[in-house]
């Protein structure tokens, strides 16, 4: 995806055990911050059925 020009911060992966609620909250905050930083997704998006 990165090669194709999608900002790497659009995809996040994490491992959180069901006991690590604090890690869960930190990851949510971190992901939200990062996505806010790179702005809305205006490339990889299909809003109307464009034809050509």
């Amino acid at each position: 995806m990165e090669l194709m020009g999608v900002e790497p911060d659009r995809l996040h992966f994490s491992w959180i055990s069901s006991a690590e609620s604090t890690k869960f909250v930190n990851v949510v905050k971190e992901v939200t911050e990062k996505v806010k930083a790179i702005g809305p997704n205006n490339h990889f998006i299909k809003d109307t059925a464009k034809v050509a």
Partner: protein
Amino acid sequence: MLGYTEKIKEIAGRLLKECTVDMVIGFRKGTMPMMNEPCFATTPEAVDTLWWDSNCGINLANYLTNRKEKVAVIAKGCDSRNIVTHIIENKIKRDQVYIVGVPCTGMIDKRKITGMVKGEIIAVSETEDTIKIKTADAETLFDKTEVLQQNCALCIHRNPVIFDEMVADAVQEQTDVDRYADIQKIETMGTEEKWQFFDDLLSPCIRCYACRNACPLCYCPTCFVDEAKPQWMGKGQDPLDVRTFHFLRAYHCAGRCTDCGACERACPVGINMRLLTRKLEMDCQEQFGWEAGLSLDQRPAMDVYQANDPEAFIK
């Protein structure tokens, strides 16, 4: 690769006479210069039409999918690796296919030559390492290494990895080859630039699926493009649908693609979609140390989990 045609005819004739196989899959001379047509030979006259030169770029492993009868196939290095993948993925049984290995010195890029020459190409003649192109008003001689298909120029598996018989002795493998220079160059571009690059690369696509159908790896009865429950991807010319199709098709070939170049050769509008498949080939190499189709007893990297799979991307 000049003497191969005679050797192929001799082997094919013998195999058919001895009934080791029911048919031989190979190439016959095309009706246009620099084009050859895959064919199957079952009778002595058909064997006589068999032909081999530097224009046999189509991957014959594609014709083995789900075959029931005993078959002989003429296989270049990349074709043989695809046959290995076919056997692993139960598309054909090992004892059902008699592999006639061809040590390959690279196939010509027809589109490249047409671009370098003025006017229509009327005739082509080939020597061991040069090729002569005859057009209406001129005759130009090219050194083969100049006009090879990109994947053949970068090829590091010219000799078949699996075969029952070889047409000639093995050729020298290329070693000092950087297979991923162009990919790394793209990776250094900025995000916006990369997006534009692929927009421009894929813009001529007319969704004819020649790349998918020329590829031996694509044998699914229903391709994800034709999925209808739900139809999550458009069938039209929307650049995003075109991009999604090429992205996911390349993803499905990750760890399986042998870079035979058949997709690029089949594409009517000449898109270099191998940038996507080779990026995934590079990743498989770096992360799993895996190269497609080299051994019969190991499934491709993306099919199995190992404890030591890299997981740095998981936070």
